[in-house]
């Protein structure tokens, strides 16, 4: 008897979540798109025939939207005659890895430091904020040049540079949120009930800061991709033959009149990924907030 109730419970819960999905078509498209991107990142490169990524000077700067060539050339070819579609797929892995790692790293570290700073205040809090100030004032380019000089250029170093320079915004935002939340009634209630600091921070306060941090993070994803693009353009980011969307955008910079598709398609993909992430996170925010959830639910359906 219990098992049946449990099975029904999960089944209904799943139905509820799915219905909330379908009620927000934009979010649905976003998650499909994002899953596709993840799929490409993991399996894309192995699915492409090598010939499309080989240099072919006869097809240099081939224009897109022509039906005369293989469908892989539908988005055109780059300055060395390589298929744009193939290059974009190969770049997915590097780009997603760099951007995701950098954003997750900076959000987690920055968020935690901000929480600590806002909650405890005092000398520690101050010190953390001054560190944020210093990081904000240190130009990311200089840091990238230094890292490049001292260590070998590599994906990991690039991730560290990007994560490091983006940390302050999470630190400061988390702190600002904590300052406000800390004053609320339920927090003083928890304190008077004897809850430990760790419990208060992680169970009560942190969850409330996450929505804003995620909002920032999803847009930050795009900014990190574009920041990496700027560094690669100056030669302190990704090294060929490795490729990211950001590098493709940077390399297309000189060809905006002659071959606009070189910078356009990678830029478009960056925008679509940022858009999807944001739509998805927005949906998530509504779903997770009990006071907002009604907007996505089918009220008036048969009772559970």
């Amino acid at each position: 008897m219990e098992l049946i109730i449990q099975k029904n419970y999960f089944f209904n819960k799943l139905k509820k979540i799915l219905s909330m999905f379908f009620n927000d078509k934009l979010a649905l498209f976003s998650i499909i798109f994002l899953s596709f991107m993840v799929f490409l990142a993991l399996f894309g490169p192995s699915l492409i025939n090598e010939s499309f990524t080989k240099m072919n000077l006869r097809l240099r700067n081939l224009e897109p939207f022509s039906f005369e060539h293989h469908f892989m050339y539908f988005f055109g070819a780059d300055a060395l005659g390589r298929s744009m579609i193939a290059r974009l797929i190969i770049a997915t892995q590097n780009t997603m890895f760099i951007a995701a790692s950098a954003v997750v790293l900076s959000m987690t570290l920055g968020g935690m430091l901000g929480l600590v700073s806002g909650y405890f205040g005092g000398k520690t809090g101050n010190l953390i904020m001054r560190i944020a100030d210093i990081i904000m004032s240190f130009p990311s380019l200089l840091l990238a040049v230094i890292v490049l000089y001292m260590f070998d250029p590599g994906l990991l170093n690039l991730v560290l540079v990007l994560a490091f320079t983006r940390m302050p915004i999470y630190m400061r935002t988390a702190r600002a949120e904590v300052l406000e939340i800390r004053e609320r009634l339920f927090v003083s209630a928890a304190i008077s009930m004897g809850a430990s600091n760790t419990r208060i921070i992680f169970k009560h306060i942190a969850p409330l800061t996450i929505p804003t941090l995620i909002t920032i993070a999803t847009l930050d994803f795009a900014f990190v991709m574009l920041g990496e693009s700027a560094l690669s353009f100056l030669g302190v980011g990704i090294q060929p033959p490795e490729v990211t969307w950001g590098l493709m955008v940077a390399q297309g910079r000189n060809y905006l009149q002659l071959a606009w598709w070189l910078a356009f398609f990678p830029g478009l993909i960056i925008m679509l990924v940022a858009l999807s992430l944001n739509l998805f996170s927005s949906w998530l925010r509504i779903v997770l907030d009990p006071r907002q959830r009604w907007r996505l639910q089918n009220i008036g359906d048969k009772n559970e």
Partner: protein
Amino acid sequence: MSKYLSKRILSSLLAVAGLFVMVFFLARLTGDPGHLYLPIDAPVEVRKEFSEKHGFNDPIYIQFGRFLEDLSEGNLGYSLRKERPAIDIVLEAIPVTLSLAAVAMTIALLGAILIGSLAAYKPNGLFDRISRVVSLTAASAPDFWLAITAILIFSVSLGWLPTSGIGGFPYWIMPIAILVIRPLGLLVQVVRGSMITALSSDFVKTARAKGVKESKVIFKHALRNGLLPVITVAGDQAAAIANGAVIVETIFGWPGIGKLMIDSIMQRDFAVVQASILITAIVILSINIIIDIAYAILDPRIRHK
């Protein structure tokens, strides 16, 4: 309040000092500036002589000692490339960037508050979705792409605006438009998120129950509390512009601090690197202090802590 302010300023100054020292040592890890300064064909003896003359061969702590000595005399370093004191060069560049940043951030902030609040009013409604897609698209577009395309369309094809350069009002339109897009996009999202939370909070419900006019509810009650994260992000964005509206400065030929910093880093002109980081740090830290003060003003609960 003044006690808080003076303590804050003091700790910021310490941060600046720490930053300065860090930059001094770290920058010198990036190689011998003589290589870049002298022509490729310069004979080996000329190179040796150059390094000797400017003390690049000395151990780093000696170089640092000399630097501190100069500092005590008020000398922030001399640009080898431009044959001028570094501070002069930086002080010429910073007002350009500051004016760009101030105008762009004002427009972005006001626009974001307006659009974001309206979007938050009916989350997932039509206005919300449209404004979200448009602002996100614009915010994640590569800025050099926007800039060059804008020049090609508005200057070359249509002839409405000058291509580039500093001057009167028409010269500002494209650079400011490009600079506004990213902070606007980000801030609209932050305002929206913040306002959604604020609008469903208890005191807003109370205000509505009391019959307060809707616009007052949004702009007076909800906004006040929703603004904290917004001004944080706005400050970060302002600092980002101050640190370098590089693309705009490069493409439109505005001699600001962003371009100066990049060029001097690439050319290893250490004096200018240090001076520009110093001035930029002062600007950024001042922005942060102002924001902290704004927290206290906006949220009485924080003020009384």
